[in-house]
């Protein structure tokens, strides 16, 4: 598992197809709790399936739609580049 320079981006800017690890969540209390309940919390891996507003991520085995405004408060770094996904 080689990590290519963990540069942090917000989730709404993260390109589709890659796998990321959540670094921090800056959303307010309620929203952070809703994200956590869906699996978007610090340390979790997720992949971006579709960009846009709302965007779709795949996390804890299922697809979750998240408004881009909220996704902007989630910061992630690349865990796995697009090529590695289709092994």
């Amino acid at each position, binding site marked *: 598992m080689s990590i290519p320079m963990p540069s942090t981006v917000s989730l709404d800017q993260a390109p589709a197809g890659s796998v990321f690890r959540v670094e921090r969540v800056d959303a307010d209390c309620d929203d952070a*709790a809703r994200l956590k*309940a869906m699996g978007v919390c610090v340390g979790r891996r997720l992949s971006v399936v579709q960009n846009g507003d*709302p965007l*779709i991520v795949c996390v804890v*085995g299922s697809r979750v*739609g998240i408004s881009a*405004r909220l996704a902007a408060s989630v910061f992630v770094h690349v865990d796995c580049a697009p090529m590695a996904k289709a092994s």
Partner: protein
Amino acid sequence: MSTVPTTTNTSLPVVAATVVQPSKMPVVALVGNPNSGKTSVFNRLTGLRAHTANFAGTTVEHRRGRVPLVGQTAELIDLPGLYSLDASTPDERVARDIIAGTGPTRPDLLMLVVDATNLERNLFLTSQVLEAARQADMATVVALNMFDEVDKHGVTIDVAQLARDVGCPVIPISARTGQGLPELRRSLSELLTTPAAPQVDTQCNCGGCGGCSYSQRYDWAESVARRVAGEPSVTLGRTTERIDRVLTHKVVGLLAFAAVMFVTFWLIYSLATYPMDWIEQLTGWSAELLGRWLPAGDLRSLLADGIVGGVGGVLVFLPQICILFFMLALLEDSGYLARAAFVMDRLMRRVGLPGKAFVPMLSAHACAIPAIMATRVIDDRRDRLATILVLPLITCSARVPVYALVIALLFANNPLMAATVFTGAYALGIVAALVMAWLFKRTLLPGETRPLVIELPNYRLPSLRSALLQTIDRATVFVKNAGTTILLITVVLWAAATYPKTSVGDLPVAAQSEIAELQQSGDAAAADHLLAQYSLKRSVAGRIGQAIEPVFAPLGFDWKMSIGVVSSFAAREVIVSTLAVLYGLGEDGESDALTQRLRTTTNSSGGLVFTTATCLSLLVFYVLAMQCLPTQVVTKRETGSWGWAGFQFAYMTVLAYVAALITYQTASTFGLG
């Protein structure tokens, strides 16, 4: 475990206490993620032996029903779906409390429904539930649902290993095929006889640090899922991904949603026509039968005109409501409703509402009552309140008879204009709802819309059986409502329109001779209709109508229309029958005859009463006015206060009045008066 402390039993619904001793029947609570197929499992186990109820002291609705087990019968309650026990909505809080053993009812056994195709996510809630159950010393069983699906995708789940990891029995089942249900029943019986709390340590006891415990739980869920099912299936989500490429697309997704909406409404308006006709015929036939059996008098009038007519007038919408519920249940079960909320979110946010508000808005086109009930999916209280407040502005099917009458008056011979005005009335309702929502979110209920976070479950073939059972359940609630609240309103309105009684002798001489003349000429029906017309005018409703005529005069309404507004206060469609009586056609006046009569009616100065301006004003008024007491009752129930129901009535009436005033005055200025 069946020795439940009597203190907790006192808060059980009173209805249960009247049947058998409630403590004798063990209670099984159904827990699970929102898309785990919990409802299908419930329907499979209970069938038609279920009904909808509220938890004592809450507005949280749930379904409960009896399940025949081996040698005993248990009561199954379907708790609201949850992703985690850290609850945010009232529904989730009740579920959490019940699982922790501190809720309005204490179950003897928890049945945790886990979606085998989505093991990792479901195991997160599982870990929380297992711990809560252990602390509350509550027996638990895991129903591993959709087990047939897993097989299809070549994944094997080590059930024995999973049972060891979760420390309680695990029964693989499929609610769709019925596979594993006998085993599940047997396991429920065993656990009820010899209860055992789950023995497991999910290693998530990390003290006060919330984020940390979440992460540990997800780690646990992931490790258990890997251990029992290996690597996630590659093919499992593939179909969903392909379908979603279309259905969640920015443009195509919206078009697809429009198409789904169109089909739903086409079904509602086309299929429902037949049963609606039958109900109308049945109502008419019962009223006629009562008329033949009972002697003429107040009792006959109360039963035939008041109760049968009034309740029948509401029941006639039952077929449409059933089709709506059936379609919504199918769409939800298939996984599509989440996509509808997803694609509508961006558009709805412009007016300050979340995407989840769109399905209630859709339902409101059939009836505002189920729509208001459907707002429970909205997370944020203010968003939900704003949605509830504007929902009755949307054109429901009860407005259709009023639109039809007015449009027939205006454009009997011009189908194109009639269609345009009809569409315009619908559009006015939608625009008004969106504008008012925008306004409320900026003034009364300020705050940003809660951003969307929604699970997009894998698409599944929906279960017709399950949808049908849910529809029957909803329909029962609607019929019960019609049999209680609406019945009461009907009786009050009947009394207001009947008393004080008027006999021919009470009328002025001119009127008496008019009636006598008709009788002599052999037209008894016309004489009766004329007497009915005078009676209504002299009744309480009639007097109120005449008293408030000056208020409605600027809208172009005469005293008869004012009576119509008063009498249709509780149910808008009543105005049609009121006008029929007031214009001397009797209650069941043929609609063509009524239109003809209204079109030619002139006022005392010889001008037409129903001018274009008046018709348009009446139409606008009925598009926007509240005029539906049952909806108000539901608003009160869902918001928890008469204050919001009162506010809803007040703002809608003011809005309707002002808009009708502007319409009438503008139209009159342009010479349409």
